[in-house]
């Protein structure tokens, strides 16, 4: 668990921070889901979150156990 708590903490609190930013953008409609470029940006934020989560997962659950000496 000592290796899993960091993922929960980083992406849990990180998710809350992201949500605060997005909600603050949506309030007052500066960040407007009717605009294609704003929808695109939301997709990029979510994609970035997922990419980082995937990297963290790979280097927690897979990479430490890759076969010794073999190119993965």
């Amino acid at each position, binding site marked *: 668990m000592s290796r899993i708590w960091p993922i929960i903490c980083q992406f849990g609190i990180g998710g809350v921070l992201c949500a*605060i930013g997005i909600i603050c953008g949506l309030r007052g409609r500066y960040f407007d889901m009717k*605009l294609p470029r704003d929808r695109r940006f939301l997709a990029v934020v979510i994609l970035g979150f997922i990419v980082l989560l995937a990297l963290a997962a790979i280097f927690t659950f897979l*990479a430490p156990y890759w076969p010794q000496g073999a190119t993965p």
Partner: protein
Amino acid sequence: MIAQAIGGKLDYAVMITYFVAVLGFGLCFGRYTKSTKDFFFGGQRFAWWLIAFSCIATVVGSYSFIKYSAAGFTYGVSSTQTYFNDWFWVPLLVLVWIPIIYYRRIQSIPEYMEARFDKPTRVAATVIILIYIVGYIGINLITLGKTLHTLLGWNIMTGAAVTAVAVALYVYIGGQTAIIMTDLAQGIILLIAGMGLFAAGIYHFGGFGDFWALLPQSHKYAFSDFAGPPEFSFVGIYVQDALANTGALMLMHQGFIMRFLSLKSVHDSRRMVVAWILILTPLAAVATSCGGWIAKALVNSGELETSPGDSFVKAANFLFAPGIFGFILAALTAALMSTADSLINAVSAVFVNDIWKPYFKRDADDKHYLLVARITSLAAAALGLALVPIFMKDTIYGAHGMFTAAVTPPVLVAIFLGITWRRYTPVAAFVTIVGGAVLVAASFIWPDALIGPLDFGMGPGSHKFMRALFGLLASGALGVFVSFVTKPKPAEQIKGLVAGTQLDAMRQFKGAEPNRRPGSKAKVIVHIDPALTEGVAIVCRGTLDAMAAEPGDLLYAAHASWYYGGLRSVHVKAGPLAADPEDSIIRMHPADAETARFSQNQRVVLEKIM
């Protein structure tokens, strides 16, 4: 550190060539600086990719290669964890903070404090930020002085002085434009150097799998253990770096504020952060840490002996031939210069905007303020240099570290609550900053009582990190409590300064209703017309339609070659429709053409800003 200088004559030559090239590169952009807007914000004309590269060069400090390689040698891949926690601040930065400061034409953090809160909060912020930045200039210079002393045998003061003079000179002449352009070069150099070392290491071992096999399993995790060891626990690094330091970098670092304001538009900040944080930062993480990983693998294969602190330099020296090693040393220097230049320019901006203008000469012309800004940048470098011998005494160096730890969380919390919560009051902001700093200072006197309950059982060894958590919680609690017992500013007075009012800020910036309809860019040819009003350009209906623009909208014209990155560009307002039917012409005043360095019949790309 290594006792004997290990650089050879060829390395010296590469280093000196690098110094001269960077200095010349920076100086040649002096001609672009004609006003304080140019000096502090590069004329607000730059493309996202230029700012992304310059940001990464500023983030990677002089000690990053040594520090992160040492962590990489001792703890492995988890040495990169501090680089992978920036993304979570992006929505707040891009959707709230940058629109507020850009559209409200805020030039410094203290200026925001007065606009959002009151004068006493501005004064408190000015004092804190100036001590914070000037101290950091000194720390950067002493760090490089020590590094050059170790690597090349130079006297510490000589190394610091040479660097300070070089940086101060190009900041004095070229301002923000010189900083951005040199940081572009330096960012590329330090990424090439670091990634080159990684590639050389992989090649040396015969492939990634063989390199990976030489690392112990404990070195292969993304994060360190949650609550241990005290000096490298995940939770300690998380609260100190991901929450306090990254938040401070995004919201209260004057150098970065000025960099964000150098963008040609707020919309470009989106691409900028994606390139900076999602692409360049992971590369920088590998570039700065890989020296330690490679050194660890070399030690495990019996080819090298080193300590963690020497791992970067020893791995580079082992893998690279003379000359190339000099290039690596140049990258270390690049990392310092690209951090110090931003800090020097930041001191200049705070001094001019928050001290000189309000207290010494209120209504002087811009040329006067430009001169003061330039002199201040020299003075800031000199002051930073003067701190070098003082910081050599550990007590003073430690005192600045304590000061930074004490003031960062309170100022960060004040900005965070200020932009996200309308109910947050001026009195609460002042109490957050001053009271929060006092409470954090008290944690140095009674660490066990104040930080102990928050240290996850790791003990005094973790207090250096966990103090950030105490500071954030204490400042936040103070701010929220005082807000509920004091009176907030009327909503009318904080329009454009708090989340939910960004559109008001846009209206203030444009002076009219913003046009946010999606449009495309148009390629046009410049016709210079002295009969026009400065700042107003005439284009035909077809061009406006392509951009989904209307007369009165803000437009941005840039040289058709992308690699200028906005260096040759200008913002204009769309004037009345052109009488002639020619689609591909933009008529502009000679002064606007001169600002952008456009000639008659110049091909440019035109886009609508709002």
